[in-house]
């Protein structure tokens, strides 16, 4: 604990000079650069020096580029300390009246100087009516669905990606055979097609709002369904169910993504790209995409590979200890009652067996439930 209260600034390289500002008040103190301590201690210190012990604070600092960056954990606190050259300028705000928009890298361009930056902070009421709803940052969310490839698909089509992985929610939809009318050189022609026939209430498909009953299914993960039977399409969808991408022609064409009609955008021909707000994937330049529609399917591949669910591998022999701990509830024994001659190996096989019984389908599930996310994502081989 290296807190020096009201110590006049000494210019040794070892110390970090801190100028902390809360409202109109300034406090100055210094910290030892090599031993900054933890964020919560620092936070307590700030409350102490400003004598505002019960006020929730949002701590920000101005970095070398003049950006206002938050300090809210050990990492960015240490970063701030190490980057201080040597003065560390802090700006404290009450959390309830905090202006989140002040943070970010954009502040470089908008507010050239720390002074200007401070001016904004000092007069928060000037450009803000009421505190916004506090929402978490995007990284805290798991995507559930997205509309993708808007720029390369005809406006009448919609490519929807459903992220099933790690979800307990059912995918929740049914498909059926049907027929749709196509325009051909010979005139209108009735062709067989696959349609969404039912949505399960509360299912993933329904909750996205991107799929609806009677939408015609055109592609499954980049593969056209025309000419395929209902059972084939069912199998394809189930096989892709962890990361299902369906291209549909919505029955209701009124909610289509509206394009910037500058270039009179016809499907896939214009160079203009206008992603919908939920579109996550703009892998390649629109120009290339437009020229190579047959190649588009390939776009899924690298992405799919990385997000691909990995098979779960359990190393049984080294896992015995952990399983024994966790598996106190596992009662099944593998020793075969009818085979007394195997008693000598019982201890060996019990560990094994406990493993076996607890790690059988049931507990595999449990493991998946508990640790599944990390497993599925980074695909490490788990060693129990």
């Amino acid at each position, binding site marked *: 604990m290296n807190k020096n209260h009201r110590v006049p600034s000494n210019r040794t390289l070892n110390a970090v000079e801190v100028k902390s500002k809360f409202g109109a008040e300034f406090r100055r103190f210094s910290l030892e650069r090599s031993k900054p301590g933890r964020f919560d201690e620092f936070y307590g210190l700030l409350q102490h020096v400003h004598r505002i012990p019960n006020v929730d604070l949002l701590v920000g600092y101005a970095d070398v580029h003049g950006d206002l960056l938050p300090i809210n954990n050990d990492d960015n606190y240490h970063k701030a300390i190490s980057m201080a050259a040597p003065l560390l300028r802090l700006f404290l705000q009450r959390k309830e009246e905090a202006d989140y928009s002040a943070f970010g890298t954009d502040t470089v361009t908008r507010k050239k100087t720390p002074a200007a930056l401070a001016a904004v902070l000092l007069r928060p009421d000037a450009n803000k009516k009421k505190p916004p709803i506090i929402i978490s940052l995007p990284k805290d969310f798991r995507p559930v669905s997205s509309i993708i490839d808007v720029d390369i698909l005809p406006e009448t089509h919609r490519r929807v990606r459903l992220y*099933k992985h790690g979800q307990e929610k*059912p*995918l*929740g*939809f*049914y*498909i*059926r*055979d*049907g027929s749709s009318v196509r325009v051909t050189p010979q005139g209108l022609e009735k062709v067989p097609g696959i349609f969404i*026939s039912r949505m399960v209430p509360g299912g993933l498909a329904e909750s996205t709002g991107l799929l609806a009953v009677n939408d015609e299914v055109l592609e499954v*993960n980049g*593969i056209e*369904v025309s000419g*395929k*039977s*209902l*059972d*084939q399409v069912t*199998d*394809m*969808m*189930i*096989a*892709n*169910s*962890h990361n*299902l991408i369906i291209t549909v022609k919505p029955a209701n064409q009124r909610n289509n993504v509206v394009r910037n009609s500058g270039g009179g955008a016809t499907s896939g021909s214009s160079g203009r790209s206008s992603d919908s707000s939920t579109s996550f994937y703009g892998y390649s330049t629109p120009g290339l995409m437009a020229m190579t529609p047959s*190649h588009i399917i390939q776009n899924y591949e690298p992405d799919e590979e990385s997000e691909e*669910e*990995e*098979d*779960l*591998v*359990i*190393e*049984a*022999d080294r896992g015995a200890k952990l399983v024994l701990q966790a598996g106190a509830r596992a009662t*099944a*024994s*593998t020793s*075969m*009652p*009818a085979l007394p*001659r*195997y008693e000598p*190996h019982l201890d*060996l*096989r019990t560990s*094994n067996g406990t*493993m*076996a*019984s607890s790690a*059988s*389908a*049931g507990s*595999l*599930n449990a493991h998946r439930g508990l640790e599944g996310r990390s497993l*599925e994502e980074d695909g490490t*081989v788990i060693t129990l």
Partner: protein
Amino acid sequence: MMKFRFRRQGNDPHREKIKQDLFAFNKTVEHGFPNQPSALAYDPKLQLMAIGTKSGAIKIYGAPGVEMTGLHKDTAAVTQIHFLYGQGRILSLLDDNTIHLWEIVQRENRSHLVEVHSFNLPGRPGIESTSCDLLALGTEGGGVHFLELPTLTLLNKSLFQDEIMQSIPEEYKCGKSLGPVESLQQHPQDSDKILIGYSRGLVVLWDLNSRHVDNLFLGKQQLESLVWERSGNSFVSSHSDGGYMLWAVSSSNPCTHDPISSTIPYGPFPCKAVNKILWRTTESGSPLVLFSGGMPRASYGDRHCLTILQDSSHVTLDFTSRVIDFFTIHCTDKDKEFDDPSALVVLLEEELVVIDLQMAGWPTVPAPYLAPLHSSAITCSCHISNVPPRLWERVISAGQQQCPLQNYEVAELKDPTQKLKTSAFSPQVLCCHEDGTVRFWDASGVSLKPLYKLSTANIFQTDGDHNDSLTQAGEEEWPPFRKVGCFDPYSDDPRLAIQKISVCKYSGKLVVAGTAGQVIVLVLSDEKSDHMIDVATVDLLQDREGFTWKGHDRLPPKSGSVVFAPGFQPVVLVQCMPPAAVTAVTLHAEWNLIAFGTSHGFGLFDYHRRSPVLARCTLHPNDSLAMEGPLSRVKSLKKSLRQSFRRIRKSRVSGKKRVVVNSPTSKVQEANAQLAEHDAEVTPVQRRIEPRSADDSLSGVVRCLCFADTFLRDGTHHGPTMWAGTNSGSVYAYALDVPSQEKFSEQSVEALLGKEIQLMHRAPVVSIAVLDGRGNPLPEPYEVSRDLAKAPDMQGSHSVLIVSEEQFKVFMLPKVSAKTKFKLTAHEGCRVRKVALSNFTSVSSEEYSENALVCLTNLGDIHVFSVPALRPQVRYDCIRKEDISGIASCVFTKTGQGFYLISPSEYERFSLSARVITEPLCRVDVERPHDLSAHRIYTKINRLLKKIKWEN
């Protein structure tokens, strides 16, 4: 740059050439007995037999190996076939009133059967009869038409009933018509005369040239068939009352009222009709009478019988299926005085039976082909390639002791063809049957030859044990029935049915596993033996609570010792508890281990020490369905009722459509039908899209098991392993501690769980195979120690190929990290049904070969993938996707061939390899005379060439 980007893997011309040299798809031969035969014909000159089927196929059989097939364009039943003797031409009459003329033609150095003409008949034909240049057709209306052959042109000399009526005495006419023409028989000596039999009983001898009635025979009994006596001085008629009559033909008396003799062999009580009769004279004395039917209606009306009569000898052949037709093989030389029949050939609905008529007692002769594969329903099949000669000989000798062959050669088969050489390594097919038998067939040639039959029923106590007493009672019985034929569709006990089989061809060990959880280890022995079988029970549930088995009981084994004939003799019986059907079995003879799996779990058993090594339950805790046995999984009554109503409605709609004619009422009907159809569309078939969950029913079913010597625990020490895959995508790998050969008796085998892999897509695991450092599959046990295969690469890193119903994946060992994969279902929408690793040798170079993964999907198409890169190579359509039993029965061989059932009784053989093809390359050389006189036909069989390409 763009070009480079878009050039796809498959378009490399060099690779394309290699692929062409390796892969080619051909459907080559149909093995077995034609399904639903409907007609039979025989050509004594060419010694060819033809069989027509209800599906419109004509198959020609000569010497073993000589086979030809023709298929009519329309799938109408073939009702009659006739050879134009010696010409290599066949006439077929179909159900749809068409006559087709087929010719045997030579093309590409082999014979084919080709349709050359067809003729649409004006009326409904009753019967046809041919001489070589003239075809006579009797109709149901009673007329007889004549067609010129081989052009099939109608001649303007049809004979109608009016013409006959004029010469009939008044008292016989009674104002009635003569009825349909039942039989037309050409005079054996004078080809211008033809015997016409009418349904009412009148028989007329008609002279074609002078167009007048030679003789009238005023029969009073409804006629069924006619046959000439060889000399032409008399003929025999058979009748619907079960009797037959012998008539004399004399030129002096143009109108015969009464036959010489009239007999009802099975009278005096009412009998069924005699459908067909043959009358054959013999040098030794009285003629031989052969007829089908005629049984006493009340007592034996349901039997399928054929009677052979000669003097006091009388045999009633009692068949298990309907008699389609029959013929005798007899002397056709015009100069000889007697028929002297040598053999009787009977075509039954399910088999072909040959009777030796020269031996006393008329014994049955095993036919060299057309053996009924389906004598009991086929439940599984297995192909063994490269059978070592030693095992081959022992199996054959065991088979010969089973049925000692007397006089194997029948006249019919004495063809100047070279015998099939048994190559040093012969392939075998094993068929496993519902009655617990395993039949061994020689599949090296075009026709499957039975080798040996193994029954597993005798080690169990079953209800069918008392049949000894039945055969005793037959002494005084009338009629003198004799059971003939081996087609036996009735199984004593369905639990005996064999589900899975595994063979070690080097040690002569066999494991068969059945429906009641029985796993039997058999060892080939040349000596008769009388011993007890060791019985062990393995509990696969492992004290799992809350489950009750509601299925069948296990089969009680016989107590005490049992006598076993030379051949495969059971040594150990392992019974799984609960006794669910065995779903996977494998054998490792070098380690003395068998592994088996059911819907509940899997077990490992050391059959040398007769002791279980391991049992593992694979059930998911929530899965209660698996426990209830095979009968509980029925649809709800409501649902099935609804479906069947829907089906009825649909069939009505389509029925209406067929009869639609343009009339006002029909238009209303049409509109209604359309409405009904629309109605059917309101409730369409839906499919739920949901990933597989862990607790799907039957998730614990063990789908595949395999043994391998590989690296499971670390990368430096390899050792025995056992792998098991389940229906829910779980793979269990066990490291085995197998004692060395000398210590087998003292030390026990140990199994330690090494790895568990849960495939995330949870699709059923269809196959597991370990690949060596070079990516080749590991050799079979003993192959390396006996120098029969190259030793696997044990230096490099091994990998394991796991095939699920949805994707193929190769994992590196021992880390089990994914290396390559192919997601078949995600790409193609089809699912894996059968897979095998096959070796393909290039046609252009024997040196070059590749291993490939062959895969049959639920859509009936075959995909070939490279191993271990898993790149798609070729794709062929093979089986119709509706043919579920065909897809389920498919078996691949190690050299890129395959078999599947096209009917319950026939295997279709196909080849994926460009090099290894087994196909009939037979040749029947026929010289057709330009002069169409019936008496001057020169025919000879020059060469019957049969070639089998067989490379390894």
